């Protein structure tokens, strides 16, 4: 870690509202307290801090000077099969990010100089058999180490200064099911938490906690029938191959020592039960704890509370996608959590439903969700056969996807992408998958379709996170699928699917700046400062599962866009 000269003088020039303590020459360890505090100059966990705002308080780059933004440096990770889905982390002037195949890089945040790199040796034969591969969505950092998951089922810890392996723990036998880890882990209180893929595969979707110092597994929670009570919600032994998983990081609530996590959908994705899903079909019952938000005790992994956002999810609308915004409103502590369906749930800290609002217009898998209770009203449960008129909305890609939204405490607005698309499908009465095996377990042939009477599009909304009231909206011809960043400089940054990064006025939605990054975006975007200078770092590189649909359905630039390339691009004021 380099010593920054004249730190106090440099910091004075950064227009930050809150006064910072003078930084020491060598960095303090990144620990739970630091991640909780959020850090002015840093980005210490996947969603920014445990509040999951995906927000930077920095305002050196702001609405009046963003037109002067230019490229400061670029890094090309190489071997970017399926592009880049990673969100970088930054601590004390060093940026840590991953490319495909869980390749980890530590770069100087001001110059992009590579400090170290680590390329895990993956089981390439296994990778060749996987569907959501070989992407990686980022690392966690804590107590001097960088933690990364792999698609072949391992969690690896690297020394933060040198990149040397501290431990490498195999958590999943990926050979049978081909599932592993694609999401970033979460570090909290000497523990690293990571959730497996699961929904499309006939397994039980584990979430793991590992001792950060030793790499030893502390506990494992099975999202499919992880308790005796939950097992009763899976008829005909369907819990054996139920799906589930928790493939994006949740958050940590230090007040209650709780891990909040979103779980994935059950398998098969599409059921043939018809209305009587409690006793008929491929997996009779509510199918706990799939498509739920769960609260686990950090130390024991025991379930403390939960809310199942979609009981008997018959549409692949995971709760795993959403960030957990930890907000306060009128003295009440709330948790705001978007579900893949396009509904956003508002809970208290015990996961009791306080409100439910729609992010997305084209929803017909239910008529509505009761905002007071979370009860699904007017469900569309299919029997074997065609679903065409009306098509099912939203599409399997969701009304909302795993790319993070951003909450800006200065404007009080939640900036989030909504996706408007639907699908026709033919549900099959597939015979039950009785043992974990290589095949997916989807349950229907399907095809993307436009919304009834309309066109497919995406939109960036500025919403009240609790009521859902919309302040402004910007539309895109294809849904953007990268994360959103908002900053203390009154800016909202959105990297779109065609390859342009946009900056909007956070209050009004007026576009203030844009720049082409050369290829489509499907990853993260963060902001940090080094030596008194603010940077915006964004990954570009298309090709993940959701983006695979774009060339065939939208044509245009997507037909020539590479699906095996990517770069980290970092901007600052010229």
């Amino acid at each position: 870690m380099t010593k920054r000269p004249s730190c106090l003088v440099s910091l004075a020039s950064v227009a930050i509202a809150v006064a910072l303590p003078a930084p020491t020459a060598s960095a303090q360890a990144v620990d739970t307290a630091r991640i909780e505090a959020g850090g002015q100059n840093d980005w210490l966990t996947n969603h920014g801090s445990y509040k999951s705002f995906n927000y930077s308080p920095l305002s050196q780059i702001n609405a009046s000077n963003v037109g002067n933004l230019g490229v400061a440096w670029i890094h090309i990770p190489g071997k970017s099969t399926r592009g880049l889905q990673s969100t970088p982390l930054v601590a004390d002037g060093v940026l840590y990010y991953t490319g495909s195949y869980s390749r980890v890089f530590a770069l100087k945040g001001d110059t992009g100089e590579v400090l170290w790199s680590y390329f895990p040796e993956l089981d390439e034969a296994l990778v060749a058999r996987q569907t959501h591969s070989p992407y990686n969505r980022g690392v966690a950092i804590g107590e001097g180490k960088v933690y990364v998951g792999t698609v072949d089922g391992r969690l690896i810890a690297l020394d933060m200064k040198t990149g040397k392996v501290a431990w490498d723990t195999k958590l999943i036998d990926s050979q049978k099911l081909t599932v592993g880890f694609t999401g970033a882990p979460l570090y909290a209180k000497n523990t690293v938490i990571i959730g497996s893929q699961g929904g499309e595969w006939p397994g039980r979707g584990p979430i793991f906690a590992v001792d950060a110092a030793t790499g030893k597994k502390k506990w494992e929670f099975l999202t499919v029938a992880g308790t005796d009570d939950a097992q009763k919600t899976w008829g005909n032994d369907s819990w054996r191959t139920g799906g589930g998983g928790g493939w994006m990081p949740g958050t940590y609530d230090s007040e209650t020592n709780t891990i909040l996590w979103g779980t994935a959908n059950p398998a098969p994705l599409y059921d043939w039960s018809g209305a009587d899903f409690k006793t008929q079909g491929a997996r009779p019952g509510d199918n706990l704890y799939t498509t739920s938000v769960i609260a686990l005790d950090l130390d024991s992994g025991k379930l403390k509370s939960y809310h199942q956002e979609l009981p008997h999810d018959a549409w692949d609308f995971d709760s795993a996608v959403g960030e957990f915004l930890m907000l306060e409103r009128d003295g009440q502590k709330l948790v705001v959590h978007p579900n893949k369906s396009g509904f956003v749930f508002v809970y208290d800290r015990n996961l009791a439903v306080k409100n439910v609002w729609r992010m997305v217009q084209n929803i017909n898998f239910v008529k509505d969700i009761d905002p007071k209770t979370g009860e699904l009203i007017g469900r569309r449960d299919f029997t074997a056969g065609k679903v065409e008129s009306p098509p099912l909305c939203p599409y399997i890609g969701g009304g909302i996807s795993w790319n993070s939204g951003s909450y800006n405490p200065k404007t009080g607005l939640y900036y989030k992408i909504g996706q408007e698309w639907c699908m026709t499908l033919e549900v099959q009465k597939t015979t039950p998958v009785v043992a974990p095996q290589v095949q997916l377990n989807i349950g229907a042939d399907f095809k993307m379709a436009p919304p009834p009477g309309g066109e497919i599009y995406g939109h960036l909304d500025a919403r009240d996170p609790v009521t859902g009231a919309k302040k402004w909206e910007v539309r895109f011809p294809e849904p953007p699928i990268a994360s959103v960043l908002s900053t203390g400089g009154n800016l909202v940054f959105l990297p779109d699917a065609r390859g342009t990064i946009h900056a909007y006025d956070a209050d009004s939605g007026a576009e203030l700046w844009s720049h082409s990054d050369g290829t489509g975006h499907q990853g993260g975007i963060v902001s940090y400062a080094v030596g008194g200078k603010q940077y915006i770092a964004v990954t570009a590189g298309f090709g993940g599962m959701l983006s695979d649909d774009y060339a065939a359905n939208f044509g245009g630039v997507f037909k020539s866009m590479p699906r095996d390339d990517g770069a980290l691009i970092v901007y600052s004021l010229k």
Partner: protein
Amino acid sequence: MRLKYCAAVFLRAVLVASLGYAMPAPAQAQTPEDLANFDVNQLFASTCGFCHSDGGRDAGKGPQLMGTQRSDEFMRERIKNGKQGAMPAFGASFNEQQIDAIIIYIRDLKPR
């Protein structure tokens, strides 16, 4: 190619009689009985259809299979070895006869 296709046509007769049976576990000790239980319609609904939209009739994440100009050899290789970053390798999941059945299904695809 022609010979293999004719052999496949014979196999189809076997298949037609056996639609609706469960899918076998990954190929280990494959027997003629396993082929009798192999339902490509169900295979598409559970796995292939994730990328080959509408049972293979449309382009989506993967190319349209209906009416493909690709040879049987090409499809066989592709199913076995996949395509890096685009399609998984299914060589460990299916035996030769099952791949024959998949190719027949693809050749037979018609608009709904």
